[in-house]
């Protein structure tokens, strides 16, 4: 079952081709499918994986790495991943951008735009914002709650 229509796939392929000047890696933390351990259910994990496989298949510069959240806890810990499914956007070794949950509906656009921004290397922020952030010397956690609808 494909998540994207043929038309959407083509559209996304073109967008990625234009935007990805640099390689971007999506690190997916998930639970292995078919495994049902009470307390470790992850109803959206399998669909998230399929969706990302589809997406990353559309560009040679967009890569997917899949990690088992339970079998590889040190990998999760290193990136500060606390729940699954989690998509960590990795570029230049940085892993400070994450998406938790299945990027469905409108959030697929969010995911795509994030990939594109990283691929272009342009955060598209106002100069004032950029200047202030560059001088920020301490960790800040920004959690944005969204819904797919």
């Amino acid at each position: 079952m494909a998540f994207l229509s043929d038309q959407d796939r083509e559209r996304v392929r073109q967008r990625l081709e234009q935007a990805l000047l640099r390689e971007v890696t999506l690190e997916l933390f998930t639970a292995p499918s078919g495994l049902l351990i009470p307390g470790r259910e992850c109803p959206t994990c399998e669909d998230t994986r399929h969706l990302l496989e589809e997406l990353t298949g559309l560009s040679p510069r967009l890569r997917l790495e899949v990690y088992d959240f339970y079998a590889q806890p040190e990998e999760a810990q290193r990136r500060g991943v606390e729940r699954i499914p989690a998509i960590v956007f990795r570029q230049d070794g940085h892993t400070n951008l994450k998406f938790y949950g299945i990027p469905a509906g409108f959030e697929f656009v969010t995911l795509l735009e994030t990939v594109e921004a990283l691929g272009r290397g342009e955060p598209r922020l106002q100069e004032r914002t950029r200047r202030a952030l560059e001088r920020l010397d301490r960790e800040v956690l920004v959690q944005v709650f969204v819904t797919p609808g």
Partner: protein
Amino acid sequence: MGMVNPKVQAEVIEAEEFPHLARAYQVSAVPKTVINRTVEVVGAQPEPVFLRHLLRAAGREDLLGPEAEPTGPR
């Protein structure tokens, strides 16, 4: 913003999939942003407003510089 400085840990969280978390921060309308688990920003805000919240949460409002804070149309 996470692209400019890796000290900004940015997470997008699907509220419906993680209801405990959404409840803990009393998320009713989205988008709702919580910064350093304390500062709440409801709705999509203009970039300068968001920046002010972020710097305030980080205790670095001084980084806003001498420019006046945005107060609206001049």
